[in-house]
């Protein structure tokens, strides 16, 4: 059975990465049709870096992603600490609230926010209310659960005595958090922030409904492009991003493995010396 599972896994991985291959090849294609390969060229990458409009879109996406993930990480971590102190009904209520954007399909979240903004628009008697701020608000909103759901487990796994020990040694509650707790939950904060950033960078559906014409992100514009054929520069962008993220992941994996190896080796050596 193990061999069957392994074969399936290999097949699935191939399946998952076919589009990457296709788009990667297309990025080196001098022709615009993905299906027919004309000739090998780096020119699309060159075009990419010279296309101001495209780079502006990329910049917009990054700005939103950075701002939204930053804000949601700071306030989300605070919220996680607060929720951790809650018990019973209150805690369950807040966690259900947190789960709503996760279990609701994106389209409903997007539509709901769009209606909220439209409603606010009619109240304030303005026509175009959609823009940078509505986009940011939407992103912060759906980023929050990712932060909270990453930080909470770390808080729960943390030795509860640690915070008390800090207080016992003279820390005010704020100091105890900054000097001790934060170090324990940092992996959760980082992975939550990273997840929020990634989700925001790539978000299409929710952004689509709350974006105005003044500030557009890359995914939304790509959708708009599909009335006309996609410019091959986009494939170059995609392939580049893929390479960067892949490199990051391999690096993360390597670092994680190193950290664990060290922790495993140490006690043995120490024990031997102590004897």
């Amino acid at each position, binding site marked *: 059975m193990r061999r069957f599972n392994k074969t399936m896994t290999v097949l699935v991985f191939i399946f998952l990465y076919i589009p990457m291959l296709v788009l990667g090849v297309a990025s080196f294609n001098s022709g615009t049709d993905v299906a027919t390969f004309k000739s090998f060229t780096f020119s699309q990458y060159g075009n990419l870096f010279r296309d101001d409009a495209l780079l502006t879109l990329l910049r917009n996406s990054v700005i939103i992603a950075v701002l939204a993930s930053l804000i949601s990480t700071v306030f989300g971590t605070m919220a996680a600490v607060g929720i951790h102190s809650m018990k019973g009904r209150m805690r369950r209520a807040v966690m259900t609230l947190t789960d709503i954007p996760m279990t609701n399909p994106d389209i409903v979240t997007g539509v709901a926010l769009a209606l909220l903004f439209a409603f606010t628009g009619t109240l304030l008697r303005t026509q175009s209310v959609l823009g940078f701020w509505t986009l940011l608000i939407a992103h912060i909103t759906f980023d929050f659960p990712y932060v909270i759901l990453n930080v909470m487990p770390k808080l729960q796994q943390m030795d509860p005595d640690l915070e008390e020990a800090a*207080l016992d*040694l*003279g820390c*005010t509650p704020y100091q105890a958090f900054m000097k001790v707790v934060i*170090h324990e939950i940092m992996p959760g904060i980082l992975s939550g922030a990273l997840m929020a950033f990634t989700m925001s960078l790539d978000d299409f559906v929710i952004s689509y409904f709350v974006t105005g014409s003044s500030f557009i992100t890359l995914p939304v514009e790509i959708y708009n492009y599909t009335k006309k054929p996609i410019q091959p520069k986009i494939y170059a962008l995609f392939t580049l991003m893929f390479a960067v993220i892949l490199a990051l992941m391999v690096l993360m994996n390597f670092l994680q493995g190193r950290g664990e190896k060290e*922790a495993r080796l140490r006690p043995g050596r120490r024990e031997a010396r102590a004897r």
Partner: protein
Amino acid sequence: MSKELIRLTDLTMTFEDGETVLDNINLYINDQEFLTLLGPSGCGKTTTLRIIGGFLTPTSGSVLFNGNKINDVPSYQRKINTVFQRYALFPHLDVYDNIAFGLRIAKLPEKEIDDRVTDMLEIVSLRGFENRKITALSGGQQQRVAIARALVNRPQVLLLDEPLGALDLRLRKDMQNELKRIQQQMGITFIYVTHDQEEALTMSDTIVVMNKGKIQQIGTPEDIYNEPKNAFVADFIGESNILDGVMLDDFKVKFVGHVFECVDKGFQKNEPVDVVIRPEDVDIVPLEQGQLTGVVTGVTFKGVHYDTIVDFKGFKWLIQTTDYCPVDSHIGIRIEPDGIHIMHKSEYSGLYGDYSSYSAEYDEIAEVSEDAEDEE
């Protein structure tokens, strides 16, 4: 002459779910004393400790420190430090920084911090360990770092919450001696919590025996061992045979149908009492010489002695003796007058002291199977 440092008055603690964990505790603790709160789990000893430390606010009653009421003073403002049960060392700091933590919060000059930490490492025999990571230390070493981290701040009082529980037996015994030595050397008041009565007897100046949120007895180790106040204390500390008896007169008590000479007085004539006899105080003698006779129902070799279970008219005693008496043999016993200790009857009478089994849990199982057999 030591002065009173901490006083707990009418301390009561009821939790949100309605459970009353502490019921009117009154206690005073002297300066430079090694005081142990001893009792089974759930008796309230850790709760008392946490109230003194400032981690819990009592429902009612007051905590006085040097005469000042400190109920509302948060833990980080009290001159008290704690050694936690699972050490609670900060994983992201090394040994030196863990110990220096409290001093740095107090913003002491770095030079002084260095002196104090180095001294402390010497005292707990961890010199050279400054830069070790916490995760790379053994249990005993972590224990000592935790102690150092607390003591380096020179608190007036050190709270210890079952700190030796996770260590193996030999190490535990060594650490008991270490802690006692450190306490006497530094002259700090230690308030120690444990459920291990042997540990309490070894280390303490004063023992406070607690059960179900109430103080059962306060005294020196010898007092508690030799003169337990009720059946609970008698059973909790060491092994005891506890029997129903009648105090006929001063120095005269009757139990198991025989009159014995004893050394207690001050009871009413013919008052029903609990009689405590320690297993090591019973001498095995030939049948004719015995004050009582019984049948051996079990013998276990314990190395130092034999644990011998003897049946006296339906009530099983534990006798610890170096004489081997085979099962089903009839033996006689003699008890010296000072081996008999008399206590007033209390709510705990009848609950302890019968050696049909060693634990209450096993008794329950035996009862159930007996009932099942009866039904068949």
